[in-house]
């Protein structure tokens, strides 16, 4: 009988070895080690046969439970001291075409930008501004309104978020709304066209407003109301840094022969501005209605007596819609510009009332490459009246101006290099503005950028062509902290 057990033992051994081998295979070498935090876990109890629900007590002995009290948030911002950040930047630019009206050096400035935020109970103080040494400025005397000179105060406001349904922001602030990409219809907050065309950082396209902004938030719609007791004009093209076409001279003029002399509406509480927006969403669609009452933001007429440029009164009614369509963003915006000082259109020295419309679409075509396009129309409403009253020797502006824009943005090198190309193309008159730019983030502090602003076309009085002499290239080095 003893003899008979041998094969049994043999088979048993075989099975044990087989089983052992199986576990060796399953303990694959590629299997990750248990990470810290799971290593102290007890082995599964032998008899655990049911679905392994998360046993609440399993980790209790081994691991701390984070509560409000021991949340670590030291140095979360990595700021020099809490709430402060900024950068130092050097930016150089040079005209491509030697223009007799401006210096060949279009930009030569060193800028220190500081951003400071301080939070009180339900209030926040926002302060941001630049100290600029601008080699091309003819005066370093600061003018806080125009931003010219040594100091450009960009934000200095108090925000209260004390109330359930209201926010108030009081003081100097940057304001933006609307759906356009570098095109604005219902955003009538001041722009700095000089910075934009000279090749400063895109953040400087917006100039600050001195205003109070009151926001209401409801279930169905929200309202923003912005009141400025004194008109905030654009930082308009005045000839000092950029040449332009002067209707008066019938030619391109610059700082030597065509500095714009303006009559600025500046009576506090009389020359004021009001901008309203009612907005909400329906599903993923965002809609808004707008109203603006104030002035044309850049000179839009001239005073008969003095010949100075003026900012006629303007009211704008508008609307916009924006939604996610075919994995891209589609938007449309319309605005009726009522030129209040020339309602009939008879005054050829003041801008006609206009209808402005745009539609745009943007989407990612391939990974990290975004394409956007917009169509834009500006239609003068009383063009016949305007023509009838135009001085015989004056160059008539067109009835309509139609423009298309294209944007290409491409991120490469681990998203540290951004190649961008934005093009404005005026239809019918074939004038254009091309903005290529490349920026490189060397590390967490240094960013280098280079780009160009190229204007061209046939007739020199055209919208973009008039800036042809200002075509420039620029380079910047920025250290952020």
């Amino acid at each position: 009988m003893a003899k008979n057990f041998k094969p049994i033992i043999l088979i048993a051994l075989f099975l044990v070895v087989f089983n052992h081998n199986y576990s060796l295979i399953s303990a694959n070498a590629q299997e990750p080690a248990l990470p810290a935090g799971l290593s102290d876990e007890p082995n599964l109890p032998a008899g655990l046969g049911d679905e392994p629900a998360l046993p609440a007590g399993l980790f209790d002995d081994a691991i701390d439970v984070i509560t409000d009290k021991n949340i670590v948030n030291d140095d979360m911002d990595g700021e020099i001291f809490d709430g402060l950040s900024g950068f130092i930047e050097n930016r150089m630019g040079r005209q491509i075409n030697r223009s007799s009206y401006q210096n060949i050096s279009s930009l030569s400035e060193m800028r220190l930008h500081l951003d400071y935020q301080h939070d009180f109970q339900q209030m926040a103080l926002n302060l941001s501004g630049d100290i600029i040494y601008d080699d091309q400025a003819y005066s370093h005397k600061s003018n806080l309104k125009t931003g010219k000179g040594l100091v450009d105060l960009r934000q200095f406001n108090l925000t209260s978020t004390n109330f359930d349904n209201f926010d108030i922001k009081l003081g100097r602030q940057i304001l933006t709304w609307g759906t356009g990409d570098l095109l604005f219809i219902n955003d009538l907050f001041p722009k700095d066209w000089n910075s934009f065309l000279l090749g400063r950082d895109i953040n400087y396209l917006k100039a600050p407003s001195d205003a109070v902004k009151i926001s209401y938030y409801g279930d169905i719609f929200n309202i923003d109301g912005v009141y400025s007791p004194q008109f905030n004009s654009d930082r308009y093209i005045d000839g000092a840094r950029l040449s332009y076409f002067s209707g008066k001279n019938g030619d391109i003029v610059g700082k030597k022969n065509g500095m714009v002399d303006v009559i600025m509406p500046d009576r506090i509480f009389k020359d004021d501005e009001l901008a309203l927006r009612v907005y909400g969403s329906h599903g993923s669609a965002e809609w808004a209605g707008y109203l603006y009452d104030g002035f044309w933001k850049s000179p839009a007429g001239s005073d008969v007596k003095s010949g100075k440029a003026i900012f006629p009164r303007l009211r704008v009614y508008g609307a916009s819609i924006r939604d996610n369509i075919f994995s891209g963003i589609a938007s449309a915006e319309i605005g009726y510009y009522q030129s209040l000082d020339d309602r009939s259109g008879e005054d050829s020295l003041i801008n006609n009332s206009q209808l402005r419309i745009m539609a745009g679409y943007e989407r990612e075509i391939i990974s990290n490459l975004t394409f956007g396009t917009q169509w834009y129309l500006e239609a003068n409403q009383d063009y016949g009246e305007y023509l009838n009253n135009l001085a015989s020797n004056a160059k008539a502006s067109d009835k309509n101006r139609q423009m298309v824009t294209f944007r290409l943005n491409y991120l490469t090198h681990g998203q540290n290099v951004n190649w961008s190309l934005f093009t404005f193309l005026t239809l019918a008159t074939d004038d254009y503005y091309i903005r290529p730019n490349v920026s490189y983030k060397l590390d967490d502090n240094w960013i280098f950028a280079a780009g160009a602003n190229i204007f061209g076309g046939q007739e020199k009085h055209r919208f973009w062509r008039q800036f042809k002499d200002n075509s420039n290239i620029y380079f910047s080095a920025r250290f952020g902290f």
Partner: protein
Amino acid sequence: MINLLNLRIIFSVAMFLIMVNIGGFHINHADAAELSAEEIVNHANYSSYYQGKDGRAQVKMTITDKQNNSRSRKMTILRQDITDSDNLKNNAYRSAQQFYVYFHRPSDVSKMVFMVLKYLDKDDDRWLYLPALDLVKRIAASDKRTSFIGSDFLYEDVSGRLLEDDNHQLLEVSKNYYKLKHTPKDPQKVEFAYFETYIHKISFLPIQAVYYDDSGQKIRTIVATKIKTIQDFPTVMQSTAINHLTGSKTVMDYISVEYNVGLPKNIFSERYLRNVPKKYLR
């Protein structure tokens, strides 16, 4: 006769041992027999992205390239699930989610906000707030397989990949892990041929995921390297992604994590893009 009897004994003992062996295997890994690959990935999906009805995390990312240059990002992420449920049954926990990502560092993105409304059945809605321009920019839903803010993590690693996008296969069950293989249903949409995960059997946290190309070469590895239980939720506190093609590596450290913060629903709106809800970010 004796021989025959012996044979019968041998046979029955052998059968017994085989049965015991199979049975033993069965007993030791009872959970494997009862959980399907789908159930495991469903639970892992919950553990990774849906624990609690909302959450707040302060995150530091360190990206180190092949040349050993490193960059960092610091951000606070707020999350809210549209459904309150934490129930795995019938996928009750799965719902649209809202994310609010506030960037602290580096300085060029400081104070920017990225907001995402993530749906299960259509493209995300996304917004970017640029404070210097006070601009609320609606942005197109990007390819989800692209880098998240320049790191070696992809958008889908951060916000979750739809379970329906892959076929899931349970390969192995070991003492600590379920090992699964996931094969994309539409290989054209992704950069990998398949990926394998090790999912911790108790916490259901994916501890390692390796992505392979057609030839079986590793292209990317993500490993969870620190786990902590926070408010009863097992939570990944450190995760590392390695891009084997570029030699780049990103370590994501969770400086703090909190669940069921009680975020108001309206945090995820234009109001709080323009006026940062400091209370919930610090």
